[in-house]
């Protein structure tokens, strides 16, 4: 905007318009590509979380045994407080702590990749994956079914297609000797432990007309279509779930990559794929398969190295007058990202000269926000971060001494936290010098390599401290109960 007069220059409104109208060279393509990538990570976190909830319920019952399942470094996520409290519900498929054997790498490569997708992640050996990961939830109460003995999942996505959301999940599940056909019937009939998220419409699969093959499509969100292609190979189910903007492409991706994975599985010589049991003459490969994903090939990504369980407290006694996350659907209240500070709110991570870096995994929940909070109200943020093995104590010390990559933007004053002695707990406050005199209280607890932190801002110091400490205690208890290995010294 051209500024014509001195009077207009002096007017702050004109200055604002001039400032706002100044051209800014945005990279539109990068923004759209980044948005698509983040959406994919969000969607993936949700589907993996849905499939893994069953394991958390088991974790409450036998956390120690379950820990062995997480050797891959990709712990199964929690399904939220509801699944934690559903401890009495038997979850058949997740009882095995260790897979019976290791699955070979059958991920399609090169020309076998259909629809322009590329490798994104490999979870390593299970068991624990939903047979049709990406299309099923295993958190439905009252459902039981066959117990799988091994599993492995690979995911693929198309990064360079902006909002064209193409992604693929390939999952192998191994079933007890001789039960492959029964597992196939459970999956197709939707009678197993895991249930389809959307109604499946079967399609003819040319050249695959047998009970050992199944092709179906469903609508997911918006105009997206999902295709599901399943093939039974001995006692192993090969399942491909693909999502694309149109059905034709989704079906091509699912069927093409299913065929490719089946061919590689047959070539692998896995006894279970030939219908054989493990024996001295037909030994099964050991489970090992270290998990990996595309992020290892690039710079620090926003995506979490493992899924942080949903541990946010909802009990009114604990959260008091705070608005619960999710009370306003337009408010982003659940952030899953590895690029967050350990104490979301009063910390900043802008100074690249600071030592250290971001955590391996992070998640935060907002209880209200400063804009919607009335003058006498309070708002809070709960943050859970997971750090590299053995570095939890250092991360905790960095918070206490403000020596980490992320630093407090105000000097915090350490307070005594009754009943929480030692270096694994920290309580601090800061009082705004402005007329409002709002108080920020921060309470942090360390569990192994996991930090649980709550930041509360309130006009009343006592309220801020009470909410910060009670929410951290509650969330820490949920982290402990979830059984994630990072919180248990691995």
């Amino acid at each position, binding site marked *: 905007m051209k500024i014509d007069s001195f009077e207009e220059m002096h007017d*702050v409104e004109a200055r604002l318009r001039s400032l*706002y109208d100044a051209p800014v060279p945005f990279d539109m393509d990068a923004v759209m590509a980044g948005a698509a990538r983040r959406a994919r990570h969000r969607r993936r976190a949700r589907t993996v979380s849905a499939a893994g909830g069953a394991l958390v319920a088991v974790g409450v019952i036998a956390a120690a045994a379950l820990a062995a399942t997480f050797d891959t470094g990709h712990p199964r996520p929690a399904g939220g407080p509801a699944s934690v409290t559903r401890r009495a519900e038997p979850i058949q498929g997740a009882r095995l702590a260790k897979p019976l054997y290791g699955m070979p790498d059958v991920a399609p490569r090169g020309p076998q990749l259909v629809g322009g997708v590329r490798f994104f992640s490999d979870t390593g050996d299970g068991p624990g994956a939903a047979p049709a990961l990406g299309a099923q939830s295993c958190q439905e109460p009252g459902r039981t079914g066959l117990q799988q003995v091994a599993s492995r999942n690979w995911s693929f996505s198309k990064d360079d297609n902006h909002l064209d959301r193409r992604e693929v999940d390939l999952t192998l599940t191994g079933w007890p000797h001789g039960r492959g056909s029964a597992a196939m019937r459970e999956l197709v009939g939707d009678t197993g432990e895991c249930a389809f998220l959307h109604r499946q419409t079967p399609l003819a699969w040319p050249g695959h007309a047998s009970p050992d093959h199944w092709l179906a499509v469903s609508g997911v*969100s918006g105009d997206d279509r999902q295709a599901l292609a399943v093939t039974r190979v001995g006692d192993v189910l090969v399942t491909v779930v693909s999502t694309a903007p149109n059905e034709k492409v989704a079906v091509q991706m699912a069927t093409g990559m299913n065929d490719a994975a089946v061919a590689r599985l047959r070539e692998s010589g896995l006894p279970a794929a030939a219908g054989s049991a493990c024996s001295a003459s037909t030994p099964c490969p050991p489970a090992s398969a270290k998990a990996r994903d595309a992020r290892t090939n690039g710079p620090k990504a926003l995506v979490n190295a493992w899924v942080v369980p949903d541990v946010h407290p909802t009990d009114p006694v604990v959260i008091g007058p705070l608005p619960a996350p999710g009370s306003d659907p337009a408010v982003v209240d659940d952030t899953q990202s590895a690029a967050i500070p350990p104490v979301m709110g009063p910390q*900043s991570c802008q100074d690249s000269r600071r030592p250290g870096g971001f955590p391996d995994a992070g998640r935060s929940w907002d209880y209200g926000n400063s*804009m919607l909070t009335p003058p006498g109200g309070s708002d809070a943020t709960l943050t859970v971060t997971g750090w590299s093995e053995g570095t939890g104590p250092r991360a905790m010390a960095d918070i206490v001494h403000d020596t980490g990559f992320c630093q407090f933007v105000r000097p915090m004053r350490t307070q005594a936290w009754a009943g929480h002695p030692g270096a694994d707990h920290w309580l601090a406050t800061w009082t705004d010098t402005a007329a409002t005199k709002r108080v920020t209280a921060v309470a942090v607890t360390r569990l192994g390599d996991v930090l649980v932190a709550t930041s509360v801002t309130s006009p009343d110091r006592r309220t801020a401290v009470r909410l910060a400490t009670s929410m951290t205690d509650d969330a820490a208890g949920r982290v402990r109960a979830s059984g994630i290995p990072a919180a248990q010294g691995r």
Partner: protein
Amino acid sequence: MRSSPDLEAWVAGALPRLLGLAHAMTGSRAEAEDLVQETLAKLIASWGRASSADHVDAYVRRMLVNTWISHRRRRWTRELVSHAVVTADRAVPSFPGHGDLLGQREELVGALRGLPPRQRAALALRYYDDLSDTAIAEALGCSVGAVRTSIHRGLRALRASMPAPELSEVRP
């Protein structure tokens, strides 16, 4: 029945405006791109619901504003970012006397950064998006009265924080 707009087409048309609004609120190109990416990621996941809204633009605008406010780390972060960083990506006008204007612009950016998020958002919606008080109230999830109060206080704070020009030279 009203048909849902195509996501990609809608985003292509709305993206420049969203980025501009985000830039007006955040004062930083990088932060604006980050904010819009985050908002669009949520929009992609909920396009079915968003596209059925009576006013998709207003729905997404509210998502954008709430996303910025909800990520309070940004509110704190801005206090650590230097003026140079904030203005480094800003286009420099190329006309005589632009140095003075640039200095005044930096003053204004600095003053904006000192405002609470509600006031910054309200000012951006009013003076960048040219929205009515009612539309701003919808975007902020508050009353029209609260909007007017926020804008009034914001403008007053900006005026107070910026030194007045030397008027004595032009007075009669």
